[in-house]
């Protein structure tokens, strides 16, 4: 559905996107993950015809984004990073205009508007001016609007930015619901790692380079096993002990916790509890998160 080859974008001397290559299948949720300034929005803007690539080729739904812009535009819906609603208009007016821009047949408009408002739970606010909406409601309305013309591909550039955790959860719930019901291909960016986990596949981007593409599961598996966080009365001594006596993939000290990356946490913990000399004060076993993935690829924590 989306095919990107050798994509590059530079602003004057600055290289915002470096030789990107990836392919997104129909019906897939593809996550683009990276810290601020990684080049996520730049990529989305090129894919949605809003920006001209410096070089490389991009096709969406079989159409080239530089040669068949209007065909591409008809095929996609986009939720930009910044709000693009008209706040002086009501929700209904915003949606109606969108129907006209995209040539949604007149007879279907009313039903479609009700349908998308239903999906994002805004049916009751249909006649309210958008400036009276909360940030979360506005974001949901934007998502609804992006769906009005039944796009084949939906781009979501940080759809939950600036929302409280509860609303964020809601928005993702809607997005997953959509994927189940409509089989829309979705391309989303975020710098919240937990959110990227809903993707079927994730590309990790940093400084304009794609440094890894895989399923969240494989990415985490590449890290090898589980992470055991240990707190002891003397972390230095405990670390020496672990290093000499146990088989760990990686060992680091972070925020007063020893992070042990191990192949198999069950075997490790059962033997470790028996033999460790330094008194234990805390123990936690967790599966690696995408944060760990990002850390291991870039050597830095992702942060927002």
């Amino acid at each position, binding site marked *: 559905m989306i095919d990107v080859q050798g994509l590059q974008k530079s602003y004057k001397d600055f290289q915002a996107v470096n030789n990107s290559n990836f392919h997104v299948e129909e019906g897939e949720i593809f996550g683009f993950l990276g810290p601020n300034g990684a080049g996520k929005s730049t990529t989305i803007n090129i894919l949605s015809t809003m920006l001209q690539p410096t070089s490389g080729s991009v096709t969406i739904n079989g159409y080239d984004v530089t040669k068949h812009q209007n065909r591409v535009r008809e095929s996609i819906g986009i939720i930009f990073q910044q709000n693009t609603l008209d706040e002086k208009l009501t929700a209904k007016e915003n949606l109606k205009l969108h129907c*006209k821009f995209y040539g949604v047949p007149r007879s279907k408009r009313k039903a479609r508007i009700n349908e998308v408002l239903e999906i994002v739970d805004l049916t009751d606010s249909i006649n309210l001016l958008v400036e009276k909406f909360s940030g979360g409601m506005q974001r949901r309305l934007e998502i609804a609007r992006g769906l009005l013309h039944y796009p084949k591909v939906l781009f979501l550039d940080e759809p939950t930015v600036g929302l409280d955790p509860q609303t964020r959860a809601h928005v993702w719930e809607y997005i997953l619901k959509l994927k189940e019901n409509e089989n829309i291909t979705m391309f989303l960016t975020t710098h919240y790692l937990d959110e990227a986990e809903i993707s079927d596949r994730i590309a990790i981007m940093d400084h304009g380079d794609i440094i890894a593409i895989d399923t969240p599961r494989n990415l985490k598996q590449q890290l090898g096993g589980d992470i055991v966080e240990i707190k002891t009365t003397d972390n230095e001594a405990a670390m020496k002990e672990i290093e000499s006596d146990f088989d760990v993939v990686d060992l680091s000290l972070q925020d007063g916790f020893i992070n042990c990356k191990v192949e198999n946490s069950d075997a490790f913990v059962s033997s470790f509890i028996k033999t460790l000399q330094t008194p234990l004060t805390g123990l936690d076993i967790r599966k690696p998160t995408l944060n760990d993935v990002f850390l291991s690829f870039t050597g830095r924590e992702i942060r927002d």
Partner: protein
Amino acid sequence: MEGIIAIWQRDMIKFFRDRARMIGSFSMPILFLVVFGVGMGGAMESLVASGIGTDEDFNYVEFIFPGIVSMTLLMTSVFSSLSVIQDRDFGYMREILVSPVSRVNIALGKMLGSASVAFVQGVMMFVLMPFLGISIDLVTLLQLLPVMFMIACAFSSLGLLVASLLNSMQGFQLVVNILVMPMIFLSGALFPLSNMPGWVDFIVTLNPVTYGVDLMKNIMIDVDNLSATVQEEMGLNLTFFGQPVTMTGEVFFLLGFTALLILLATLMFRRKN
């Protein structure tokens, strides 16, 4: 086609919703009307009267009024068109640009939206006529309205091109100072521009406002019944590089001007870095 209508409609809805702006935009034309019409009117009338030496029925406000309406058309058109800069900053322009509406239709829709807003404002100025002792008959009105809309289209396309060249609202004040105001003063809208130095004449000749104002004057004032001296004094004998200007010529000038600027604005919308 529906794209044009949608973009136009958005401007209309917002215009009729914003009463404060509607009232507010009258303040400037009324101020000018008072200063140039009432203030300078007496002096102008006696000047002209002494020149022709008869007591021909001559009312200066009649000459000023079409100019003030043109000025309203110009200012409202340009300001409304400049709202695309705001749309760009506040994002709505991206919603339009990412849609499959063709770029020329975006420019046309926006131009028609601004022109319609300006047209309505211009027509609303007519409520002042009874207070100024001017009247208009139905036939004149029916001739005037399409011409006013056409003038508004020309001014709106100018505003649109300027907006597409500007990067931010910061340039707004600059546009008002170096474009809108000079265009008003060098058009004959507020005072006649006879016997001006050559370079001023040159600007006046290329200024589209000149022809908008002149068209409106020719329709609203009973020009044929004025003495030749008054016609000359009031700047009604326009020339275009030596050629006498006809009303048909003026209409073509304005239509050509509009088409050219819409074309340029479309090219600007198409440009991406």
